[in-house]
């Protein structure tokens, strides 16, 4: 049964990412890939919170691996950094990587702390 939920929520996560990314990216006026950044930071925060809250293994499998695994995206983050470098935006490309790591780790830590308290 957990596998069925994993597939369903995996699909939901993927669609949610597409919607959020398109809504943010389509309106954004900066070179920085804001859509992917928001999706990854929100996902890191949520995964941190789930981990901190010590939820059951099956729930973690379905929500963490399924929902958040498909909601966040490492490959798009890397792809967009590469595209920035192609356009000669080396600073923004490296900034995207650095800020992504820093903000993602901070969001996960904050999520963990909040999850552990609740």
């Amino acid at each position, binding site marked *: 049964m957990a596998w069925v939920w994993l597939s369903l929520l995996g699909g939901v996560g993927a669609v949610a990412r597409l919607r959020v990314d398109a809504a943010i*990216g389509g309106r954004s*006026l900066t070179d920085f890939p804001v859509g992917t950044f928001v999706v990854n930071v929100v996902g890191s925060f949520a995964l941190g919170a789930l981990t901190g809250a010590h939820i059951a293994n099956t729930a973690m499998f379905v929500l963490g691996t399924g929902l958040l695994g498909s909601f966040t995206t490492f490959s*798009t983050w890397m792809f967009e950094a590469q*595209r920035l470098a*192609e*356009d*000669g935006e080396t600073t923004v490309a490296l900034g995207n990587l650095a800020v992504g790591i820093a903000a993602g780790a901070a969001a996960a830590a904050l999520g963990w702390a909040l999850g552990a308290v609740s």
Partner: protein
Amino acid sequence: MTDDCLKLTIYFGESDRVGRRLLSDVLLDELDRAGLQAAVLLRATEGFGIKHRLHTQRLLTLSEDLPLVVIAVDRRDRIEALVPRVQQLVEGGLITLERARIVTGPVTRAELPEELHEATKLTIYLGRAERALGQPAYVATVNLLRLHGLDGATTLLGVDGVVHATRRRARFFSRNADVPLAIIASGSGAAVRGVLGPLGRLLDHPLLTLERVRVCKRDGVRLAEPRHLPETDDASLGVWQKLTVHAAEDARHEGHALYLQLIRRLREEGATGATALRGIWGYTADREPHGDRFFAVRRAVPVVTVVVDRPDSIQRWWKVIDEVTDEAGLVTSEMVPAFHAVGPGIRSGGLRLARLRF
């Protein structure tokens, strides 16, 4: 040379559909069935339309629905016969008609009509697999254009099209050697007249069009303002104008890619649309012809950015373009005698050709 020809240009979205089929497929089938002289389907790298949503290859999610451009040329009656069907099919996008002259076969008489004397836009349609002088025909052609002093040329690679009434289409499992190419070049009337004969000798079956343009700017040097055209002609038919910027992908403005700055500024200032097409080979002004290099992250292909709008708005966009092209780029302006924009709740312009004397 066939004088009374038209160029039909359709701007739309990659994911637009007609029933269950892709609009791009349906349109190209229609153009193929009509047996047109030349038609090319181009996939833009970045752009926005009337809804102001950005579509770009730079962001993965926003690259799902890139702008597409179809360019089709033939005799006026054959293009006009297609227009109602195209209008019926395109539910969101922009359709324009421009006057052109088509040159096919051996070029014997290299005289240009008087209105092309100031400057001419020369478009050459080829297959990617065609060869000349032991190199790809588009490379040889671009060299020839530069040798004869044209101000710039950009080779655009099509994904589908018709050349000499034969369908050439890219497929997923294929080398796609024979997809169509369009080389868009601009130069003085004298330079274009000079290159027609040599081009006729270089290519096996030359197929090219000539259109009237004005060269406004070249590598930061202002040469002429876009004409101040009236909003309508004597018969009250609307008049539109087009500005085209040729610049290499590595050309900069204030430290950023010029073509991206251009699209961003135009979108910020509220233009109704702009489209950037990335070419594979070309040059502007005195620079050597260039394209991508194998071991380089930064790309150096030529990019063409196009804006079409009413004459009063074009004067505003010219100011934006003038600022962004302070160091590099080739800017040309043209009159667009028929323009039809369609979107949700929007239907403006019409496809009867305006006529202005200038």
